[in-house]
């Protein structure tokens, strides 16, 4: 690990200002992904701003009937929260499908949104990777790419976003709230939060230097049955090959979001309200391209959509 200076921030404003003042500062909350990457010198911050004591750890109902989730709420706490279990089951299910119990106890809401890809070549510093070292090339394109993306990729990067939680939040129409170093705040719909790789795969989101996520707001709970279905290589503690978050109403009409398929949680609004699984799959998979090792994800996604809608109909 490269040396860094450490400070424990007492509040959000102090944290944001401290991170803005240093060229290469990082916030640390759970640290479960950041420290992993720092040990491999993929992340090399000069300064760590510890935000574990800034507050922002509550879950509260909003005036509109939605839910405001503090940035520091741990994944395990959020998954077990009575309101989430009762009204946003898809979020609870997505969280419980991710990582291990130890990691969920530590990982935070904001940190989960900002976790980096698990592309093998991003992690292997002896290999080219445009995300880790812009301009060096993409070893995944001609390499082992079983876990990689089939939608939203570019010739520079085919890494997939690893989060389960963010897939459910994307489906629910979550909004990310931030605090900037100048004291200003922003509300960023999760739909607009992530960037596709294009020719700058190192830029994964729209946050600016020193900008701190303070929370995530969910709109009032939607009508309909909520489902999260995750397909992976092991029964537990593995990233999704394909995952589907779904809200299905009594008529079988659905809204879906997908994990494992793209550089960000994937939503195709044009497929909303459809009930025929093949028509949905055609709309969602339009433009999907396999890279050899991950070709199977395209037919797999079609089958998972079918299974999710079939199971919802029979329930």
């Amino acid at each position: 690990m490269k040396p860094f200076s450490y400070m424990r921030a007492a509040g959000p404003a102090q944290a944001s200002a401290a991170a803005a003042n240093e060229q290469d500062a990082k916030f640390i909350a759970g640290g479960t992904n950041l420290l992993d990457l720092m040990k491999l010198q993929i992340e090399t911050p000069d300064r760590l701003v510890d935000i574990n004591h800034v507050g922002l750890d509550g879950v509260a109902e909003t005036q509109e009937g939605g839910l405001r989730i503090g940035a520091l709420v741990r994944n395990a706490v959020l998954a077990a929260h009575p309101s989430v279990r009762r009204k946003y089951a898809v979020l609870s299910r997505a969280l419980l499908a991710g990582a291990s119990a130890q990691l969920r106890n530590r990982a935070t809401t904001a940190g989960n949104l900002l976790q980096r890809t698990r592309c093998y070549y991003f992690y292997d510093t002896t290999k080219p990777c445009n995300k880790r070292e812009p301009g060096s090339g993409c070893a995944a394109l001609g390499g082992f790419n079983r876990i990689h993306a089939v939608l939203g990729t570019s010739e520079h990067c085919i890494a997939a976003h690893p989060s389960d939680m963010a897939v459910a939040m994307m489906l629910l129409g979550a909004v990310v709230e931030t605090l900037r170093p100048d004291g200003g705040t922003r509300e960023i719909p999760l739909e607009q939060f992530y960037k596709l790789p294009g020719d700058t795969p190192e830029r994964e989101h729209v946050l600016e230097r020193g900008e701190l996520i303070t929370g995530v707001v969910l709109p009032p709970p939607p009508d309909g049955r909520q489902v999260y279905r995750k397909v992976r290589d092991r029964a537990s503690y593995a990233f999704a090959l394909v995952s589907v978050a779904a809200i299905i109403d009594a008529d079988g009409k659905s809204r879906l979001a997908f994990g494992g398929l793209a550089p960000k949680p994937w939503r195709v609004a044009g497929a909303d309200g459809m009930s025929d699984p093949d028509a949905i799959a055609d709309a969602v998979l339009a433009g999907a391209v396999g890279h050899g090792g991950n070709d199977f994800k395209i037919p797999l996604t079609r089958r998972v959509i079918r299974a999710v809608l079939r199971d919802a109909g029979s329930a």
Partner: protein
Amino acid sequence: MALTDVVEFSLKVNGQARELALDPRTTLLDALREHLELTGSKKGCDHGQCGACTVLVNGTRINSCLTLAVMHEGDEVTTIEATDDAVLSALQAAFVEHDGFQCGYCTPGQICSAVGMIAEFAAGMPSHVTEALEQDRAAMSDLEIRERMSGNICRCAAYPNIVRAIAQAAETPR
């Protein structure tokens, strides 16, 4: 502060206040093993994948390899060396009784993880295999134990006996 400065802070480990002066890069696991001579917690992968380093911080199980010691100033850390934790002691006895190990390297992490898991169960935390999210508390079963312990890998594959040991200890009256 210069980049290489040492940070002074204190941790409460197994009920005792311990003073430390460490490079901030030191993980909680390395602080326990290399600076506090508590070598029960094991370093397997050092990347949060194997669970051998699992300890309890303020009663919650975490991977001690993926957190910095300095982040835990004021926290209470419980390791496999704790002697006054009834659940931990019951688990140790049950692992011996059921032969819940072969080489033993993952065992401290398995046992600390199981202490946390039993507390999570009692608090009504659901898991991926819990059928009804709305119910207050899932029923303990082998399936629930296996899912909730999936963050602890046993290279010797002593899993059947680990599950038996945990199931017994979880039901031990205290």
